[in-house]
């Protein structure tokens, strides 16, 4: 069908409705020249972005010395994994990630349902507020929670003691619960961003049919609404679970001091805490994690395979909104409580601290604007900000374009090789970031001298695209899965080319999800440290590197100022995005 459509208008230049014409023409030419050529090009791009650095790492896991050094091939790295200590670490990692993902998923679905499908007051504002925690650098909220939830001197416990007179603390963030809670602050809005648009994009006729057939509201939710959202929820669950396994800040901040070790802290120790970095063991551990991830993804494919989740058809619809009556104030309170716990408390602590000379010392004589001035006059910060914006906008856009193409091939076609493409796009997500950063460093440095990637902004850009593609693919493929094939076929029948159909039908309908993916990728780039610290070069510093320098340089207050600045940026981005989505949906 696709081939027929491509052949129908062989010589026509493609107008991809806003894509830069030359790029669109060039890429379309590849696909027009024949499906194998297009697929080969896509596989080559993805292979370079994922397989190549992973290949370097695989070599590292089997070789006693890293690339470029003499050594011998052996399985010592893998043999060293089979210890009782590593089993405990694995159990900790999986257990913590599973609990936090399950709790976050339940909470995110509730919040998304409230925002997208009920008449709760101020839903637009609530949506922005709920997603905010995701965009705050974890090291800042970790510090804030260290001050709020410390068993001895934490603000919450001090307030509790003052109110009740009891000596027993009600909260201790340096515990399993603390690690899980801190991770939930990121995974809940992350999952929420996935599911909220799926709730919106659901044709209410399906739910109405269920109700007409005398199903209760609860039965309708579980059998229709929830079932139709399986691609999105399982994608979000798996992505979030994987993020949980790869999380570093929460366990290192709240777990390590009380002896809770997870895979990432173990890998970090193998690389950074030995006089000789143990790359072989670290990469072997990274591949062990990858096998675990691969099993999960395979499970998701099996779970979803062969089932239809189409909810957006050619027929007009508008999302069904449940009238909650007085209960809408309860749902409103739930959203506000989430916002207070995840944003108002830690950000309030940060905001307060940013006006004092030292974090956590609130004396009048320490009031100052020095940290704001410090950031304003910091040339390195502005240079890094410019680099980051350039890489963020370019990287997020390129990632979403690549993600949209990969998602199309894997979800909307029966082309041979699509599964391989899906796997290639997934690979970077399956390897812990701090290990993959080494793979990129090895890979880019080992390229022939004529390929000028190493030591340039391109190295960072390509690494960011590779790291962002799995999210871009998941976001867009979940949205594509909800769009009926007949709309696409209708476009083809009327003579539109493959690219025109992709851009004007699929991307246009999946646009809200595309925008969410763009924002997730953009802010992901702003935060990526593991790849940035290894790949940046003098003059190409990015924000995450500058923030690390400030943090280790004893300027957490200035890092807070940057964190707050990023929050404002998020608010602006989200506001523009939601305005655009609203305008777009009203014109569909």
């Amino acid at each position, binding site marked *: 069908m696709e081939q027929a459509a491509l052949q129908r208008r062989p010589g026509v230049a493609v107008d991809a409705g806003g894509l830069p014409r030359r790029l669109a023409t060039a890429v379309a030419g590849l696909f027009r020249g024949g499906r194998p050529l297009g697929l080969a090009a896509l596989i080559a791009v993805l292979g370079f972005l994922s397989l190549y650095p992973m290949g370097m790492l695989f070599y590292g896991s089997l070789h006693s010395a*890293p*690339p*470029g*050094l003499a050594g011998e091939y052996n399985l010592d790295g893998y043999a060293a994994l089979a210890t009782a200590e590593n089993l405990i670490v694995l159990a900790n990692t999986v257990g913590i990630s599973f609990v936090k993902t399950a709790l976050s998923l339940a909470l995110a679905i509730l919040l998304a349902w409230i925002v997208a499908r009920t008449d709760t007051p101020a839903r637009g504002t609530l949506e922005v507020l709920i997603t905010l925690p995701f965009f705050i650098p974890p090291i800042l909220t970790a*510090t804030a929670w*260290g*001050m709020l939830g*410390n068993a*001895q*001197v934490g603000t919450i416990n001090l307030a509790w003691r003052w109110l009740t007179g009891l000596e027993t603390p009600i909260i201790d963030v340096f515990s399993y619960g603390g690690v899980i809670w801190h991770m939930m602050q990121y995974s809940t809005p992350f999952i929420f961003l996935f599911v909220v648009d799926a709730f919106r994009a659901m044709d209410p006729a399906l739910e109405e049919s269920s109700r007409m057939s005398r199903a209760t509201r609860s039965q309708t939710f579980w059998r229709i609404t929830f079932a139709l959202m399986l691609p999105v929820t399982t994608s979000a669950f798996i992505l979030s679970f994987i993020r949980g396994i790869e999380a570093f800040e929460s366990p*290192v*901040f709240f777990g*390590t*001091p*009380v*002896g809770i070790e997870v895979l990432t802290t173990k890998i970090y*120790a193998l*690389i*950074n*805490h*030995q*006089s*000789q*970095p143990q*790359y072989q063991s670290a990469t072997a551990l990274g591949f062990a994690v990858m096998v675990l991830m691969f099993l999960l993804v395979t499970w998701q494919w099996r779970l979803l395979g062969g089932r239809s989740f189409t909810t957006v058809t050619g027929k007009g619809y508008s999302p069904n909104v449940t009238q909650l009556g007085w209960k809408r104030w309860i749902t409103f309170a739930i959203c506000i409580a989430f916002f207070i716990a995840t944003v108002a408390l830690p950000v309030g602590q940060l905001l307060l601290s940013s006006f004092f*000379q*030292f*974090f*956590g*010392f609130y004396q009048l004589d320490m009031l100052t604007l020095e940290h704001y001035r410090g950031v304003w006059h910091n040339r390195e910060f502005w240079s890094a900000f410019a680099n980051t914006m350039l890489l963020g906008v370019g990287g997020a856009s390129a990632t979403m374009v690549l993600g949209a193409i990969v998602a199309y091939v894997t979800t909307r076609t029966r082309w041979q090789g699509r599964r391989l493409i899906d796997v290639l796009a997934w690979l970077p997500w399956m390897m812990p970031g701090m290990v993959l950063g*080494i793979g990129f*460093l*090895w890979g880019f*440095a*080992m390229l022939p*001298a004529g390929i000028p990637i*190493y*030591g340039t902004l391109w190295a960072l850009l390509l690494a960011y695209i590779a790291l962002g593609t799995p999210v871009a693919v998941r976001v867009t493929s979940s949205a594509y899965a909800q769009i009926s094939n007949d709309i696409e076929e209708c476009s083809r029948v009327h003579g539109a080319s493959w690219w025109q159909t992709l851009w004007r039908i699929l991307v246009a309908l999946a646009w809200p999800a595309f925008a969410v993916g763009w924002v997730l990728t953009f802010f992901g780039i702003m935060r990526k440290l593991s790849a940035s*610290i*290894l790949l*940046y*070069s*003098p*003059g190409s510093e990015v924000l995450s*590197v500058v923030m*690390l*320098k*400030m*943090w*280790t*340089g*004893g*300027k*957490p207050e200035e890092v807070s100022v940057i964190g707050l600045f990023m929050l404002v940026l998020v608010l602006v981005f989200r506001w523009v995005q939601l305005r655009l989505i609203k305008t777009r949906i009203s014109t569909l």
Partner: protein
Amino acid sequence: MLKRVLAAAATILALAAPAAGQTDAEWQKVVEAAKKEGKLVFYTASIGSPFYKDVTRSFEAKYGIRVEALEARASEIRERVRIEQAAGRFIADLHHNGATTTWLMQQDGAFQPHGGIPNARNIMPPYEADEIRLPSDVTSFVILVNRAMVKAGDEPKSWKDLIAPKWAGRMLADDTRALGGGAVFFAVTYEAFGKEYHEKLAAQKPVFSRDLRNNERRTARGEYPLYFPFVLAYYTQIKTLPVKVVIPQEGRLYVRFDLAVLKNAPHPNAARLFINHFLEVESQLVYANAGYSPVVKGVVERSSEDMRSFLATKAMGTTVPQRQNEMLDLAKQLYK
């Protein structure tokens, strides 16, 4: 001890000889060549430090040579240099890192001889230079106490006082099982006080945290009355908080940072000139006033008054790179 001092003196003399033999005219040629090179690429593990930047700025102003600095953690710098050199990409000129990592990189063959530095003759014991490495600055580790929680006179006087029952469960510490100040503390005190000391200290259940800059604030906020080993150079930034530095009677622990010219450096003369500039009294004074021990003569006496008393205290010891892994393994056994 005497043997080590004599060996150090011999090394300094050996180094000073070619430098002294190196006439002003010869050094002037190095300066001119460096100016022609016009640029220096400097890799440093001193992340977030404003002090090397001060030295860099004065170097740029004095010689008109642009310095491009790249900061990363010690192991990241090492791996970056290794892979660049393996791939034939000789980008960086000068390396600035802890003595252990520098020693390991020297074993990897990452450096080339610097060729003689005039100011090397001013390096003072116990610090040493050789034909590859020159010391640049020294980080000292001491004890930090919360003034509000620990009354004057109750502070620990010795590293041995940390095993007193009153500190059980009340100490925050840098991790002894990981590279950094914690490992330095373990290695030096293990040598000095033996295994029993650490068994007792482990029984005190110190809380480990690698977030060094937050640790000092946690102590100041009263979460813990005592934190060790504390980087003395951080004190200037937090001295207005309710904290106090305690230098144990056995002395400060220390870690030396070294400078070394990287193999096939594209700007070798600029690298030599920068090393010489780093060892100037004015450059060393920048470090001394911040709480780093200077490595050349004639600096301590010119340093700021509040730092001079700390810098004048004796140094207890540092790690031996060759025994680092053995010490880390021992620490892991003792501190579960």
